């Protein structure tokens, strides 16, 4: 099996087809990272494609002594952050004109509640993760989903290990608090419906 550096050299030498090895090797972990960050599958897949295109175009910038996995995730992280920033701006603009329609949506679609009960826990968790601050979310996703070590997270993000440890610790505390609140809310909603 060719190493990442061997594949990259082959692509630099003109064997473009070899890039397929890189794509197949990293498409799932990159997609999962991006998806956990932006929570929209289609958008995550499109963004993941863009990540690979960017990597291909900038292959000459990659230095052999670096860790390619960290390099690829750094690009994915930066592009994801840019997407999230754009999304925040668009949401802010749309809310100026339309307001928050989530509750209205659920009010007119009562079936959603029953469907949610089936995947209640999963959605609670996803919502709790989405409520984390951006850096906490990045650190947590890399640690929990991709099982990166603190050291590897440091290579991807450029953060110090103490900072990473603090971010993850705060993320977990935040999750614990949020999930507790959500569980209490769910119990209260159930009680109201039963009445």
């Amino acid at each position, binding site marked *: 099996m060719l190493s990442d550096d061997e594949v990259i050299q082959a692509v630099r030498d003109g064997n473009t087809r070899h890039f397929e090895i890189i*794509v197949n090797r990293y498409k799932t972990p990159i997609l999962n990272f991006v998806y956990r960050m932006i929570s929209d599958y289609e958008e995550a897949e499109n963004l993941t494609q863009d990540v690979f295109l960017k990597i291909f175009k900038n292959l000459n910038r990659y230095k052999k002594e670096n860790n390619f996995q960290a390099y690829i995730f750094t690009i994915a992280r930066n592009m994801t952050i840019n997407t999230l920033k754009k999304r925040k701006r668009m949401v802010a603009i749309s809310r100026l004109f339309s307001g928050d329609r989530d509750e209205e949506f659920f009010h007119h679609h009562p079936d959603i509640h029953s469907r949610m009960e089936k995947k209640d826990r999963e959605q609670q968790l996803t919502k709790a993760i989405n409520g984390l601050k951006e850096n906490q979310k990045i650190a947590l996703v890399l640690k929990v989903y991709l099982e990166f070590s603190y050291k590897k997270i440091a290579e991807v993000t450029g953060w110090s290990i103490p900072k990473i440890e603090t971010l993850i610790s705060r993320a977990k505390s935040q999750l614990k608090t949020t999930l507790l609140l959500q569980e209490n809310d769910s119990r209260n909603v159930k009680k109201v419906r039963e009445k």
Partner: protein
Amino acid sequence: MKCDRVIPLLNRFQDGECHPETASAINDHLKRCDRCRREFLRIDQIISEIQEIKAVTPSSHFTARVMGNLPVQKPAHRIPAPAFIYSAVFILFFVLGLLVTVPLNTVKQMENREITLVELLMKSQNLNHFDTHQRAIDLIRTGGQHEE
């Protein structure tokens, strides 16, 4: 190990980032201490549930789409030679050029000088009819002595 030392390390322990000896000491404490164990299990359960959320997989044509959108690759770059190599080559050619052209010019100058001298000699020696130019040059070289 006491609770006040264990609790700050629980996060690191849960992440698998503790030194083996420290991890072992924390493990022993958690077996004995209900409070710390409850705290640890609470977070551990949340993390385990997050990890159990099914991973997403790329669509079947994902790779083909990426490969199809790759830009056409430019020919492999020739490794640019360092500037000093180009400079060295230039200097080499320059010097070689000098080495070749200077002697040529000198010979030409000498020939021109010889021609001028020939004319002078002809005038002084009153030589009006030379068969060849070479006789005159020979005269110059032999110091004007010629055999008639």
